[in-house]
C-alpha cells in the first residue's frame, strides 16, 4: 500500500495552495473545514486508517497526523497574515487629515497685564514677600494724608484724582496698602500689593486705569542698597539682563526718593518712539519709607526703617508684545487680545 504516500503528498500540496489562496478570514475558515473539518479530507484519511494492514497503520497514522499539524500551521500562518492585512486596511481607512481644525472650543487668552502681574508675583513670593490687597475705593486719609501728602501741599497735584461720593477716592496708587498692611503689624515684614489704580486722565494714549505693583519691606537695617539689589534682580526676572538708572526724585512718602528707568530694549539707548527718543523707559518710583509714614502706622522710625517701590504693570506688557500704546490693553478689542 505504498501507493498511498503520493496521495498524502497531493493532499498536502492542495491544502497548501488552498490555504495560501484564501482571500479572507471567511475563506480561510472554509478551506480549513474542507481539510480538517469533521467531513474534511484529512479526517477521511484518518477514518480510512482502520482499513489498512496492521503493520502500516502506525506509519500512515503518523504521516496523516503530521499532515494535520502541518495544515494547522499553514492556516494559523495565513490567519495571522490575513488579520494583519485586515488591521492595516482599518488603519488605512481611518487615516485622518490631522491638519484639520480641532473640535471644541477656540483658544482662550489670558490678559497680558494678568500675565505680567503673575510673573511679578512669582518673583516676589520666591523672595519671601507676601501678597497684600486693599480696596480700590479708599479714604483720603489712606490714599494721601497718612502717606504724607497733605491737602495743602502741591504734591497732591502729582496725581489727578477721581473722587467718589462720601469724600472717598479711587486709589491713585497702591501705596495706601502700605498703610493698611503696616498698621498693627510689627516688623520685620515684606509685602507686595499688586492691583489696579486710577488717575483722572482720559486721552487716546492714556488710560484712567492701570495696574501697579507696590512693594515694601521694613526691618531694623534695610537699606537703599538692599532696594537696589532687589530691583536689579526683579528687572532681570522681568526683562532679562537690563541696565537700570536710578534718578533722584520726589515722592512725599519716601525719603530719599528715586525714579527708576530701564534702558530701552528696543533701541538699546539710541532713542526710538517707544522711549520718546530718550533711550530710557520710566518704570516706577522707589525710595526709603518716610519716617512720617512709619509713624502714621505706629512703627517707631527710630528703630525701624524700610524701603518701598511701585511700578506700572503695563510697561512690561507693552514691551513684551511691542504694543504701541496702553489703551490697546483696555479697549477689549479681541482682534488685539487674541493675538497676545
Amino acid at each position, binding site marked *: 500500500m505504498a501507493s498511498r504516500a503520493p496521495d498524502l503528498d497531493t493532499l498536502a500540496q492542495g491544502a497548501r495552495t488552498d490555504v495560501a489562496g484564501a482571500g479572507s478570514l471567511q475563506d480561510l475558515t472554509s478551506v480549513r473545514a474542507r481539510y480538517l473539518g469533521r467531513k474534511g479530507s484529512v479526517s477521511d484519511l484518518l477514518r480510512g486508517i482502520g482499513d489498512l494492514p496492521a503493520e502500516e497503520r502506525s506509519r500512515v497514522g503518523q504521516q496523516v497526523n503530521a499532515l494535520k499539524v502541518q495544515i494547522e500551521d499553514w492556516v494559523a500562518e495565513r490567519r495571522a497574515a490575513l488579520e494583519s492585512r485586515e488591521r492595516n486596511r482599518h488603519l488605512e481607512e481611518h487615516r485622518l487629515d490631522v491638519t484639520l*481644525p*480641532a473640535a*471644541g*472650543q*477656540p*483658544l*482662550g*487668552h*489670558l*490678559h497680558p*497685564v*494678568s500675565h505680567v502681574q503673575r510673573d511679578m508675583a512669582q518673583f516676589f513670593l520666591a523672595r*519671601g514677600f*507676601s*501678597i497684600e490687597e486693599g480696596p*480700590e*475705593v*479708599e*479714604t483720603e486719609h489712606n490714599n494721601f494724608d497718612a502717606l504724607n501728602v497733605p491737602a*495743602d*501741599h*502741591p504734591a497732591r497735584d*502729582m496725581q489727578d484724582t*477721581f*473722587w*467718589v*461720593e*462720601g469724600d*472717598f477716592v*479711587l486709589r491713585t496708587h497702591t501705596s495706601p496698602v502700605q498703610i493698611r498692611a503696616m498698621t498693627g503689624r510689627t516688623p*520685620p515684614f*515684606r509685602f507686595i500689593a499688586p492691583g489696579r489704580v*486710577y488717575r483722572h486722565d*482720559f486721552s487716546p494714549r492714556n488710560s*484712567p*486705569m492701570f495696574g501697579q505693583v507696590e512693594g515694601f*519691606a521694613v*526691618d531694623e537695617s534695610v*537699606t*537703599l*542698597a*538692599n532696594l*537696589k*539689589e532687589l530691583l536689579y534682580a526683579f528687572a532681570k526676572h522681568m526683562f532679562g539682563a537690563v541696565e537700570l*538708572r*536710578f*534718578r*533722584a*526724585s*520726589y515722592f*512725599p512718602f519716601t*525719603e*530719599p526718593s528715586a*525714579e527708576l528707568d530701564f534702558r530701552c530694549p528696543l533701541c538699546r539707548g539710541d532713542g526710538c518712539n517707544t522711549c520718546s527718543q530718550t533711550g530710557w523707559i520710566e518704570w516706577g518710583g522707589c525710595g*526709603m519709607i518716610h519716617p512720617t509714614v512709619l509713624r502714621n502706622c505706629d512703627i517707631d522710625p527710630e528703630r525701624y*526703617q524700610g524701603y518701598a517701590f511701585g511700578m506700572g504693570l503695563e510697561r512690561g506688557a507693552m514691551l513684551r508684545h511691542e504694543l504701541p500704546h496702553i489703551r490697546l490693553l*483696555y479697549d*477689549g*478689542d*479681541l482682534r488685539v487680545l487674541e493675538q497676545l
Partner: protein
Amino acid sequence: MLVPLSWLADWIELPDSVEALAESLTGGGLEVDAIERTGPDLSALVVGDVVEHGPHPNADRLSVCRVDAGDDEPFEVVCGAPNVAAGQKIAFARVGTRLPDGTRLKKSRIRSVTSMGMICSERELGLGDEHEGILVLDTDAPAGTPLADVLSAGETILEIAITANRGDCASILGIAREVRAHFGAAVRVPTCDPPEGERAVAEDLRVEITDPEGCHRYDARVVRGVRVGPSPNWMQQRLEAAGMRPINVVVDVTNYVMLELGQPLHAFDLDRLRGGVIRVRSAEAGERMTTLDGVERTLDPSDLLITDGGGPVAVAGVIGGGDSEVSDATTNLLIESAHFRPGRVRLTAKRLGVQTDASYRFERGVDRAGVTRAADRAARLIAELAGGEVSRGVATATGSTPDGVDEIALAPARVNGLLGTALSRDEIEAYLARVGVEPATESESESGGGGRHGDEPGRYAIPSHRNDLRIAEDLIEEVARIHGLDRIPATVQVGPLVGGGAPRSWTDAERARDTLWAEGVTEVMCFPFLDPRDLDRLDLAESDPRRATLGVVNPIAESHSQLRSTLLPSLLGLLRENRNRQIDRVRIFEVSRVFRVEKEGELPEEDLCVAAVLTRSDQNRLWEAKTEAAPPLFFEAKGIALRLVSALGYRAELRPGAPQPYQHPGASAGIRVGRRVVGEVGELHPDAAARFAIDVPCAVIELSLSALADVPRQEKRFREVSRHPQMQRDLAVLVDRDQRAGELVDAIRRKGGDHLASVEVFDRYEGQGVPEGKVSLAFRLVFQRVDRTLTDGEVTKSVDQVVKMLANQFGGELR
C-alpha cells in the same frame, strides 16, 4: 520750567556739553524733559576760507572765489557780494547741502562759470535781514569747522520738570544752585540794590498785616516818575524764551525778576491805590472783587487779600485786581514782594481755579529771606529801564514766622545706615556743602557745636531757600543725590524670611483666570465705571441692591458716572463692540471688583466677581454641530460654570430660581454651592439683548468669588471602591413636559436604596410616539454593593420601588 541756557550762563559757568548738564540735573532730581534749540539749523554749513578772489570773466558785478572748506580741493564759487575778499573766514554751503530755509543748494552755472557752493549772507543763514554783503566771521576756527560751533544762532532752552518739593528751583538762581551742586562753580548773583532818591517811601505808603498767620512778610518799594513803554529787546527775548509774553516794561521787569530769583512780584499803579496804605487781611464772607482777567470773584474768609484804603486790590499770591493794574499812563509804582503761607495760597488758587506763575511759586514756598532782595532788584531794573526814581527805604511789615528749620542734626552712621554706603564724615559734609548746607557755627548751635568728629551727630545750618529740608532723611537724600544714586551699591538684604503667601482672593482670582482661559474664553479688563442707564437696560428693579451704586464726583463722562455694581454691562458693551468689528464668536470674561454701598459714609463693599459672556459662531464651521442639533447655549455655559466652581474647590449645582430680569426666564439658573446661591448662569433675555444692541444669542455666567469664599470648603472624603460587578438598569418614563429631570434624579436617588451607586439622565425625547404635553425621560441606574455581588432580585426590587414612586409622585408611566 523753561530755562534759556544763555540766561543761566550769566549766573554760573556751565559745562561745555548741554547733554552732560542735562544728564547731571536729571540724575540729581531735576528732570530735563527736553533740550530745545531755537533759531536756524546751521548744522549742514561749515567755516570756509576765501583763498582767492578775482573778477568774473563775463560779469562786472560778480566775482569768482576759491573757497577752502577743509576738503582736499578748494571750491570755485561765484559771488555777488561787494564785501567779499581773500583771507576772509566766511559761512560756506557746499553744493548739495540743506540751507537753513530748508532748500537744497544746487550746482549752478552763472555766465559760463560753474559755482560749486555759496558764501552766505546773514539773511541766507536765517540770522537777520542783511543780504547786501556776505557775513564775515570773526573766528580763528580752521576751514571745515561746523558753523554752529562758531556762530551762536538762536537759543538753547532746557525744559525742566520741577518736583513739588523744590519751589526753590523755579528760578534761574535755583537752577544755577543745582548746577553748582553738580559741577561746583560759583553762582554769580547780580547787583540788586537800587539807587535811591530823597523821597522816603513812608511819604506814600505804610503796610499793615492783620492776618499774620497768612502773611509772613510784606515789602513794598515805590518808584516814581516812570515811563511805561515796551521793555528792551533783550528782556523781551529772554521772557519769550522762558515762555512768558512781554507786556510792558514794568510787568516785564516783575516777571523777569521772578524768573531770576523765584520771588513773585506784583506792581500796582500807586496813584490808583487809596488811602496810602496796604493792608494784608483775610477776606470777609461774601466779599467780591474783579481780578485782572476781568472775572468778578466771590471771596471766602480763607482767602488772603491785599487791600488799600478802599478795598481789595489783589488776591494775595494769586492774581491782582483790575483797578490798580499798571497801564501806559502809570507814572508812580508800588512793587510788592511778599511771603505768604503756602497752604493759604494753594487753597485759594484751587478754590478760584486760578493757577498763576505767582501761585505756583508761593504754593511751593519761596525763599523766606529773599523778599527784600527781589523788591530791590525790580526797583533797580525799573529805574534803569523805565526811568523814575526809587523812593528811599522799603515799606515793610512782618507777620508770623514762616515754616522751615534752621538746623538739622545728622550723624554719618545714619547716612550710611539708611543708604547702605560707607561714606566718611568729610565726604558727607562735602556733598552737603555743595547744596549750601554747612556745619552750624557754634553760636547758632544749641549744643555748642559739638560732635564734629567721629560718629557724633553734627548740626547743619539749612539755607533759607531750602524749605523742603526738614529732617535728617532730607539731608541724607541730598547726600545720596549729589553722590549719585547710581554709585550706591546693590547688596542683598539680610534678615529673617517672613511670610511669602498670597491671600485667598488672589489665588481664587488666579484659578478662575486659568480655568476660563483653558475653557477657551479670553480675559478682558474694563474700567470700573458704569453708565447709570445700563441698570435700566438690565431692567433691574428699583429695590435691586445693584442699584445702590457709588457715584463718581468728577466723572470723565456721564456714561462713566457710577462705579460698577455688576460687571455685566461692561462685558455686554464689549460683546457689541466686537460684533461691530465683525468678530463672529465672542467669548470673554473679566475678574474684577464690583462696588456696593452697604452703609452711607463708609467705604463700599468690594466684591471680587467673575463674569463671562459667550456667543457661538454664526458661521457654519467644520465640526460644529449645526444649530438645530447643538445643545442650547445654556448648557455650554452651565458646563463652564460647573468646571469653574470645581476648579475653585467646590461642587456646584444649578437650580432654577428667580431668574434675573435680564435673563431668559426659561433658560437660567442659580449656581448653588451648599445652601448659598453664589452666581447665575443664563441666556440673555431677548429684550435685554435688544436694549444692549446685541444681535446674537448669548449666555452669561456670573460668579461672586467673595460669596464663594464665605462657604466653607468641604474636604472630599474617600469612599470604598467595590470589587464586585455593577448592575445597570435603564428606565424610560413619560412625565409632564414641564417636569424637571433634576427633581426626578433627586427623587430616584432618595428612593433607590443603599446600593444605588448613580443615576444619570441619558435621554430626553418628545415628538412622535410621545403623547402631546408629555416628555420621555430616560434614566440609567447603576447598582453596586461594596461587600458582595447584588442579586437580580435585589436590583429588581429596588427598581420596582423607584417605578412605583415615579408613578405616585410624578404621574410617571414606564414606556
